[in-house]
């Protein structure tokens, strides 16, 4: 259904090569650059020789092509069906796009066909027109480098003002929330979009934005006892981190993970969720965080 060569990196690369050739001859360097950009690491060994040797009869011996028009491909039905499916997702409103022409297309899936059963229930308000407006202002500002003046609700409910240049939008599927990474005046901030109450372009005095240098990820080493399929569960649970695993024998495994230290609190509870099948081996500072939780639990009087 979707594993088809028409979607392949090779077809895209050849389309781009033929596009270049239809507007005139392309140099060897230009052709190699196209392959490097659109195909895989070893593709240059195949694509250019196949064209030059006439196995794929699309490039004549003199380097021109019998193809007359820049190659384009109509959208396939499954592509339209997928687009129809996302057009039914309420988050599509954030982008202000009109997916016309899909009226008679059957969606590939609807919200009735799948369920994300463990995402948190206090996700961002995607139906709120004001939220949508702010989202678009931020998205535009990221593209143009426009500074913004932000009004938001602080931790204790107070109103906070910020001037900043948004750099990235981060989305968490688990939290179902967007956060904005910014560089601000002197400082850099990360803010939850839902906490922003006002947001407009800032044209006041220019400022040199503070750069948020992401601290390097920190290492964490775990020991896993592979009972009740724990190894697979742990590996899947932490699959989204840069990680390395090794077998210690006797159903014991060691897992090295790199994570952002600002997420330490979350990591502690994620590790505790595996109970005694996962033990933190290092660093000591992280072990202390676990011990602290356990000591508090000992004082809860749970019999």
């Amino acid at each position, binding site marked *: 259904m979707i594993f088809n060569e028409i979607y392949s990196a090779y077809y895209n690369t050849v389309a781009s090569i033929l596009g270049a050739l239809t507007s005139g001859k392309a140099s060897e360097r230009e052709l190699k650059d196209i392959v490097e950009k659109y195909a895989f690491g070893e*593709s240059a060994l195949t694509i250019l020789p196949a064209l030059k040797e006439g196995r794929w009869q699309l490039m004549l011996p003199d380097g021109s092509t019998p193809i007359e028009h820049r190659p384009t491909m109509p959208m396939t039905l499954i592509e339209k069906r997928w687009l129809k499916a996302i057009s039914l997702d309420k*988050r599509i409103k954030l982008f202000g796009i009109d997916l016309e022409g899909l009226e008679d297309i059957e969606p590939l899936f609807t919200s009735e066909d799948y369920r994300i059963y463990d995402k948190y*229930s206090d996700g961002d308000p995607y139906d709120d027109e004001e939220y949508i407006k702010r989202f678009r202002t931020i998205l535009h500002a990221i593209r143009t480098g426009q500074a913004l003046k932000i009004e938001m609700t602080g931790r204790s409910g107070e109103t906070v003002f910020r001037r900043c240049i948004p750099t990235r939008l981060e989305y968490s599927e688990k939290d179902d929330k967007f956060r904005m990474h910014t560089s601000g005046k002197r400082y850099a901030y990360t803010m939850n979009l839902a906490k922003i109450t006002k947001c407009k372009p800032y044209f006041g005095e220019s400022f040199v934005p503070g750069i948020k240098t992401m601290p390097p990820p920190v290492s964490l080493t775990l020991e896993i006892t592979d009972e009740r399929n724990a190894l697979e569960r742990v590996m899947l649970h932490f699959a989204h981190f840069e990680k390395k695993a090794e077998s210690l024998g006797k159903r014991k495994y060691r897992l090295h993970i790199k994570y952002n230290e600002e997420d330490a609190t979350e990591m502690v509870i994620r590790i505790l*969720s595996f109970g005694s099948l996962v033990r933190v081996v290092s660093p000591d500072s992280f072990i202390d965080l676990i011990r602290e939780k*356990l000591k508090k639990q000992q004082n809860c009087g749970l019999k």
Partner: protein
Amino acid sequence: MSSYNELIKNFERIRAYMREFYVYGIKSREDYKSKSARTYDDEKRRMESWLGDHMSYVRTPEGKNVFISIDSRQCDHNPLYNAWKAKSFTDGDITLHFIIFDILHSPLEEHSLSEILSLIDEKYLSGFDEPLVFDESTVRKKLKEYVSLGMIETRRAGKQLLYKRAEDNVALPDARALNFFSEIAPCGVIGSFLLDKTEHEDHPFDFKHHYVTGALDSGVLAMLFEAMRRKSIISVSNMSRKREEPRRTRLIPLRIFISAQNGRQHLLAYQPEFNTIKSFRVDYLSSVKIEEPTPRFDELRRELDVMQTKMWGVNTKRGIRSPDKLERVEFTVRIEEGEEHIVRRLERERRIGTVERISDNEYRFFADVYDTMEMIPWIRTFICRIVKLNFSNRTVENEFKADVKKLYEMYGLTGGEEE
């Protein structure tokens, strides 16, 4: 002797390898005993070519372990999608593809098969020393394939069938929207195919808690969605941790359950053989064949809707007609001053459960579920403030408490209350 090709004909083998390399990455070449060494080397080389820097190595006493390591927060595009863009083809396939769409370069161009054949020979291939030869049946087959994919339309004029490019009446959406949904929507790889048609160097999004593994199951998932849209029965091969070989089974697929917390995808389906609605891991399913529609689909989906109010995750009751054997799960947490965020946590994470305040600083959670065990990992995340447990499944409650004691021992806390 066949030579190495970085493209592949069949996705299933690479699906298994990539999963093994990505999820585990703890096996050395010698551990892949069931496969030939050559197969292992070829698959590894392909992945290196597709994934570049995401492939890593570690030397162990057992040998060199190869694994895929992806920090998904640093990737604005799922690298595993590349596997879906590596389908092999013949010299004739690619030549015909570009020639056909050049002949049918606009929806206004309409040609019969014989006209297309003449144009291929006379206009496109005559400049080659040894032109490829395409017979009528090959070209007809290719055109038919493109008709089924929705790229070409046909019209009958008298006895002739005329072919033309399908109208492109759907504009390609903004690349930022495609980028976002290709990462977070089911079957996102299709969005990635569309994204390939755009110039998409600048993406504004990062993704946290982003599980990319599901990409490998996109083919199966697309088939399951299709079956649900058609309200049809499927036959499918189902692997199991307990069995070496997959087993063929018939199911009525009802809904896909996706976890945002570990990326696992399950199919909830009715299994006529056991008269039960149960979950099947999508990564264990393969070779989906859609059979006839069933009149029972709507009734069974309604049944699942009702069951969902008692499901914490994906586990269900035993038989569809058997009475609900529910287990009550209750626990109480104590919060300290300034820990109101814990109450908010309980509220946003409670799913089918209820949270009530029982004193100034104590909150009780309770739920009736089919399977207490499924809730245990979540309840453990409240360790440091659990003051009371009350599970109707006493065995699970006792196991929970014993495990907490084991944790105390593991971290050198000998048990008993600390001052």
